[in-house]
């Protein structure tokens, strides 16, 4: 039964109706979700309603799973899409329906607009959630979704287009009276020289169409200016097909703080506090927290005010994030990310909200609920499939064993399970560990304990590195800037005590006296039957190291 329809009757009538027609367990779940849906109590008031019954999630990994969970709670059916590399992935199993959209390469699958729209139509979807990354900030995708008569769960395509261009976004900010980093909106050499003579060096050259640190260059002095402008333009042209660059004063030690916003179809825009995201590696956030330590209430209010002005000036709708650089008592607008952010859970924990549910309800035409007063502190660590001891080299592999943390205030968003494969095709994010506490110290202590419980065999990952960072004096005292890792963890390596333990274990694995049990490992390798049939030869009996991928 369709929950949106169900909501028009009372929960009692609904239950009778559902039990009559769907007496099995599978639908008992949708009774609960329909009741929950009805309990929101606002559906009858909706104007401009667009019904969402079936949602296609144009993404993979933890975020696809995260979106499926919220949709299910709202009683919405879910459709996963997957590439050939993801046939056995968790999001495929979790969704009500799943469609293969192409080969492993993202350009042929998760970035393939035609294939995704085709899958959505074939599966009868009436809405598409893009998640983050992939097509989430491509206006042409939002347009294609709407043109096919489906709801795009995100901002309007035109708004996305204007915010995606950094120069245009800077102009919107200036027009709204929001401070931007001093700079010039052009890569013209004469204008650049004039700006440099006033502002002084170093100067940052950025690509108008850029993102994720690409097409960005720091210019130390006047002699390097011309070459840097040319190189940045060339790089931007190659990477984004758009060679426009602009200049900004280079801030040596800024903090990165962002404001979560939500806007609806009725012109309401709200802000849900800030997130401190200064701890970054190669312009990629790895630890985020809320509230931002030491941020004064006055400064927070000014930033929230600026974010709301920006959102209104841009005609923003749905979930978005206004990013700022903070330098002393000044803050500067950086960009608006027109999508759900990776680090959204820390806001959810403090505000007691489900931001994906908010997104879906806004997309269906609902009014935004007034936010509750935030409480406590939340910290998120991104666990990546990377070797932190070796320059964060990407790692791939298959999960042989996994132990996930739990406990009060501990949430983990991950698509990993026994046998899950991390392939070289996609992002290295494998799990987000989010810890909540009454205050920062409690959240931090819970994070250290939770990271200590996390263990994953089969994929080299950053959990031990994150634990050392969160436990460090620099993090404890919140000495935060985007240079944090360069300053405090320039050459991290594993603790010698852990290395000693690991070496003993490795020697024992090699000698056949220690190793993964075949029940888990064989399941990961799909060879359970073989090991069971081995009888006396079964590694079960030996509890010893054995060859996981077949005999040597």
């Amino acid at each position, binding site marked *: 039964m369709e929950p949106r329809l169900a909501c028009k009757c009372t929960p009692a009538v609904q239950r009778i109706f559902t039990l009559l027609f769907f007496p099995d367990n599978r639908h008992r779940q949708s009774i609960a979700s329909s009741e929950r849906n009805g309990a929101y109590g606002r559906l009858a008031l909706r104007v401009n309603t667009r019904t969402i019954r079936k949602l296609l999630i144009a993404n993979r990994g933890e975020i696809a799973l995260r979106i499926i969970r919220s949709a299910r709670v709202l009683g919405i059916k879910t459709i996963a899409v997957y590439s050939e590399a993801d046939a056995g992935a968790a999001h495929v199993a979790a969704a009500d329906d799943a469609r293969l959209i192409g080969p492993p390469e993202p350009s042929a699958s998760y970035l393939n607009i035609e294939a995704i729209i085709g899958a959505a139509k074939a599966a009868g979807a009436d809405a598409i959630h893009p998640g983050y990354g992939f097509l989430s900030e491509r206006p042409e995708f939002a347009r294609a979704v709407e043109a096919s008569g489906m709801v795009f769960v995100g901002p309007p395509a035109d708004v996305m287009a204007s915010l995606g261009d950094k120069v245009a976004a800077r102009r919107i900010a200036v027009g709204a009276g929001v401070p931007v980093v001093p700079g010039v909106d052009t890569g013209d050499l004469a204008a650049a020289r004039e700006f440099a003579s006033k502002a002084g060096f170093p100067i940052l050259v950025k690509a108008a169409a850029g993102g994720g640190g690409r097409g960005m260059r720091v210019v130390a002095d006047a002699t390097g200016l011309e070459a840097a402008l040319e190189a940045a333009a060339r790089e931007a042209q190659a990477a984004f097909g758009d060679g426009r660059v602009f200049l900004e004063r280079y801030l040596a030690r800024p903090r990165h703080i962002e404001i979560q916003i939500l806007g609806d179809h009725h012109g309401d825009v709200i802000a849900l506090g800030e997130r401190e995201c200064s701890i970054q590696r*190669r312009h990629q956030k790895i630890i985020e927290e809320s509230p931002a330590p030491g941020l004064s209430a006055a400064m927070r209010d000014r930033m929230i005010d600026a974010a709301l002005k920006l959102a209104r000036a841009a005609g923003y709708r749905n979930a978005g994030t206004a990013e700022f650089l903070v330098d002393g008592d000044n803050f500067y607008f950086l960009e608006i990310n027109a999508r759900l952010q990776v680090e959204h859970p820390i806001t959810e924990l403090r505000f007691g909200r489900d931001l994906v549910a908010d997104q879906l309800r806004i997309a269906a035409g609902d009014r935004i609920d007034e936010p509750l007063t935030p409480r406590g502190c939340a910290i998120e660590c991104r666990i990546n499939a990377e070797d932190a001891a070796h320059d964060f*080299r990407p790692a791939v592999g298959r999960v042989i064993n996994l132990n996930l943390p739990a406990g009060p205030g501990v949430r983990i968003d991950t698509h990993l399970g026994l046998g899950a494969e991390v392939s070289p095709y996609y992002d290295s994010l494998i799990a987000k560990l989010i810890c909540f506490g009454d205050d920062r110290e409690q959240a931090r202590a819970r994070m250290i304990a939770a990271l200590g419980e996390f*263990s994953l065999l*089969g994929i080299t990952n950053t959990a*031990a590195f994150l634990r050392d960072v969160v436990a460090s004096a620099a993090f404890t005292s919140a000495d935060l800037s985007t240079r944090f890792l360069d300053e405090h963890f320039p050459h991290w390596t594993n603790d010698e005590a852990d290395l000693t333990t690991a070496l003993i274990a*490795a020697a024992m694995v090699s000698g056949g006296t220690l*190793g993964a049990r075949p029940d888990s490992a064989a399941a990961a390798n799909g060879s359970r039957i073989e090991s069971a049939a081995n009888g006396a030869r079964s590694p079960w009996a030996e509890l010893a190291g054995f060859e996981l991928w077949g005999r040597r």
Partner: protein
Amino acid sequence: MKLKRIGDTREFDVEIIAREGSQVRARIDGVEVTAHLEPVADGSTMIRVADRHVRVFGARLRNAILVGAGPASFEFATVEGRIGAARHGLAAPEVTAPMPGKVLKILVAEGDTVENGQALAVLEAMKMETTLYAEAVATVKKIHVAAGQMVDHGAVIIEFSPAPATPSTNESTAPGA
């Protein structure tokens, strides 16, 4: 046995001297260490060394020994065969992919003579670029892959002719997307 961490040059000499019940005596680079082991039902083992007590998982793959010690993950290779030979200048004259990924660029041509430290090829995995460098002077004999091609871990990328000194790979990851 000699072990090294994959991606690292440091070598460790590790010997299990004795095992009595739950107690294991090992020697690491000449220093004796005692560990206490308790098996756990999920296949892991709690190992206590001095005052450290961590959950350890271990498994042997074709070309690596994986160990998870608490949240720390280690990938070891036994130092023998090719790796041992490399130290005596007899390394297999080829550069292999250090991880599965896509070949972005080949920076040399067949017949080129490469310098020590010269960039040879760029691989991409997980939106990050990894450059492969030559570690010695050599001549490019054959290039086995083309830009745009997907390669498996260990796939031969470039073969060198047996030059006076033969290169092996050294990787460093550079920012990508």
